[in-house]
């Protein structure tokens, strides 16, 4: 794993840094892609959970420069954390990123709004060039913009670019070279007021005088036509659900072969290590602990990459904002934001990318509330657990398990909504809902290369930020499952039933009894904190399932589960009541230290992460006990 500045030159403050600035949807990130040839990384700075994109310009554009793509700024009034950071950098108040020059990205179809924002940049008195994007959309709005006239009126070079094809990018850089040598003189942008009413008037006057824009803009006909369809009173939701279903299908079915491949590769690697090297604790730690532990999480990587890819695709095409518009009403009723549907949906794959996806929610309160309920979304690590437990409780046909599983998924969405609504009404009622005011960008045919590049940037950021906690957690859990106190030696490698984990399991057995579980199930529950599906493999270990013969691990485990009894009473452990109790426990409990670690990092505090861990795990336990006891009272064993 490399750090973000590994390839580029030392600390950003010593370097010449060109900042890409602009409003959201101005094509900034696509331009970043074109400038750097896709050679950029996300960078995080201490104390800030906002990622910047850093890269170096391609040599063919002249002297390579360090480029930082700042988050898009919609408005500097009541800003989101992203907007706040961008404004801080632009105004030169950021301690690490000091811009030497700006590339102001301006949407040619929205000159007034974008140039008004440009006033903030112009007032900094730093060399600035304007990259005029979306020029190809001018055909749709029936306008034409004369870049030369605009440039003359502003006193700033204006270069029309199409970052999607690379047209104009070289000229943009050449004009920047010409500027940085000379003293930066006053320009029209620097005179734009910081007071919006005055600023818009100034920009309007300037545009009128310049004669750069012919004709007033007509509504973009293609965008209006598509919107009439996707926001249609009757068709809007069917289209939206179709998109969601396709997303789910891709995440689960398309990813499956890749997941099997990765699973196979890690199993092979782990068994090769343990069988080839001479048997020792270190070898087992490497094989069963590290490799298998990383493998347990790596299997989700294809799902997460597909998720990132499809989300970027939807975002780029312009549909995501429409989807958010459709569902904003029910979501804002729950105290969430239209855009919350993206992290919630991602949560069905894995809570960790979902936490990252919550950054798309501009409002703090709504972002916090969304992250709060994400652990309830039925992530795919729960799937193997549910599959095992449902197979154990439903002896009937596969369709029964299918229906039960669908019910679990739908309930997780409904209960998540309920928790959000209750939390918003009881604990956040003093906080006003934030403004929606969400831009619906013009529809564009997506370009594959920038999307793939962005997917990779997001995927590798995920690996970097989530990979380390996951590895640490799985290593620690392996150690406590394989080491224990042995008379004579204080700590030694032991079989699992004598390990620290089993000791811990036996200590908590009194707590587990009310939910119908013994210490062995407890060991499974503890080890599941590495990743929920580890529950299945550790149960197999503690119940001594022999996987050498033809049967699969699950079949062997099911056989063992049917006969397993409590050591003292001799009663069966896995009864319908106790199995349903376990399902309830997994449904609510935040059994994932990686999620806890990622939320802590994202919020830069233990408060929310710790609260989630205690609340959801406590809730899961309480409801599991209530379920088991009431089922028994009703006569279900």
């Amino acid at each position, binding site marked *: 794993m490399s750090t973000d500045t590994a390839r580029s030159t030392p600390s950003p403050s010593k370097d010449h840094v060109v900042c890409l600035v602009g409003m959201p949807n101005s094509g900034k990130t696509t331009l970043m892609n074109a400038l750097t040839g896709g050679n950029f990384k996300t960078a995080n700075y201490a104390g800030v959970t906002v990622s910047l994109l850093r890269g170096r310009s391609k040599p063919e554009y002249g002297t390579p420069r360090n480029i930082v793509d700042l988050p898009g700024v919609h408005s500097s009034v009541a800003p989101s954390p992203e907007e706040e950071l961008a404004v801080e950098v632009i105004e030169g108040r950021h301690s690490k990123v000091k811009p030497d020059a700006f590339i102001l990205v301006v949407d040619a179809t*929205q000159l007034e709004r974008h140039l008004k924002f440009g006033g903030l940049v112009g007032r900094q008195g730093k060399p600035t060039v304007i990259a005029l994007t979306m020029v190809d959309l001018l055909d749709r709005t029936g306008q034409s913009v004369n870049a030369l006239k605009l440039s003359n009126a502003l006193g700033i070079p204006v270069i029309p670019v199409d970052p999607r094809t690379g047209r104009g990018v070289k000229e943009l850089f050449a004009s920047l070279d010409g500027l940085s040598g000379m003293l930066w003189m006053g320009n029209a942008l620097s005179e734009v007021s910081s007071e919006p009413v005055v600023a818009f*008037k100034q920009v309007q006057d300037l545009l009128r005088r310049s004669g750069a824009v012919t004709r007033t803009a007509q509504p973009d006909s293609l965008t209006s036509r598509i919107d009439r369809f996707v926001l249609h009173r009757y068709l809007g939701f069917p289209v939206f659900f179709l998109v969601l279903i396709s997303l789910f299908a891709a995440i689960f079915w398309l990813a499956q072969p890749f997941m099997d491949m990765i699973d196979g590769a890690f199993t092979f690697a782990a068994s090769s290590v343990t069988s080839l090297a001479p048997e020792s604790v270190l070898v087992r730690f490497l094989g069963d602990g590290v490799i298998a532990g990383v493998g347990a999480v790596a299997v989700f990587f294809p799902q997460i990459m597909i998720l990132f890819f499809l989300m970027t695709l939807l975002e780029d095409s312009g549909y995501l904002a429409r989807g958010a518009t459709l569902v904003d009403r029910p979501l804002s009723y729950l105290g969430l934001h239209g855009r919350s549907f993206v992290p919630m949906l991602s949560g069905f794959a894995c809570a960790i990318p979902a936490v990252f996806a919550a950054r798309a929610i501009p409002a703090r309160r709504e972002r916090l509330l969304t992250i709060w309920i994400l652990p309830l979304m039925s992530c795919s690590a729960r799937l193997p657990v549910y599959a095992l437990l449902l197979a154990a409780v439903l002896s009937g046909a596969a369709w029964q398990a299918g229906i039960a599983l669908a019910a679990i998924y739908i309930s997780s969405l409904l209960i998540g909504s309920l928790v959000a609504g209750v939390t918003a009404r009881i604990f956040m009622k003093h906080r006003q809902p934030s*403004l*929606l005011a969400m831009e*619906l960008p013009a529809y564009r045919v997506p370009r594959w290369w920038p999307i793939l590049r962005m997917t990779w940037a997001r995927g590798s950021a995920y690996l970097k930020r989530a990979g380390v906690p996951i590895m640490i957690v799985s290593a620690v859990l392996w150690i406590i499952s394989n080491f224990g106190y042995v008379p004579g030696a204080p700590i030694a490698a032991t079989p699992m039933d004598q390990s620290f984990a089993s000791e811990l399991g036996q200590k908590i057995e009194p707590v587990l009894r009310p939910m119908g579980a013994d210490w062995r199930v407890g060991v499974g529950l503890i080890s599941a904190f590495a990743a929920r599906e580890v529950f299945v493999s550790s149960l197999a270990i503690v119940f001594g399932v022999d996987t050498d013969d033809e049967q699969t691990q699950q079949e062997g485990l099911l056989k063992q589960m049917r006969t397993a009894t409590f050591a003292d009473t001799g009663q069966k452990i896995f009864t319908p009541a106790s199995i349903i109790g376990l399902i309830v426990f997994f449904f609510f409990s935040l059994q994932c230290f990686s999620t806890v670690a990622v939320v802590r990092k994202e919020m830069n505090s233990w408060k929310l992460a710790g609260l989630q861990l205690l609340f959801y795990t406590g809730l899961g336990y309480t409801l599991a006990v209530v379920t088991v006891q009431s089922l028994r009272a009703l006569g279900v064993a």
Partner: protein
Amino acid sequence: MDPPVARPLTDVGLNRNVRIERLDGPHQDCARLLDLGFTPGEEISVTQWAPLGDPLVVRVRGALLALRKREAAWILVE
């Protein structure tokens, strides 16, 4: 002749160009609306209502912005 009475943007029909008279709502939110381009005198129009009747899509200065009904009601038009 009496000056036309200002009415909230939510009362305006689809695709009718109307001129903003003033904003009347929470200070911070109106400041952000101003910053986004909803300044008095500017011509805007409602291009669409979401299927559930909220939010609505408003065209302002060449951009399409989705506003919730309560936010749009702060925008008083002539």
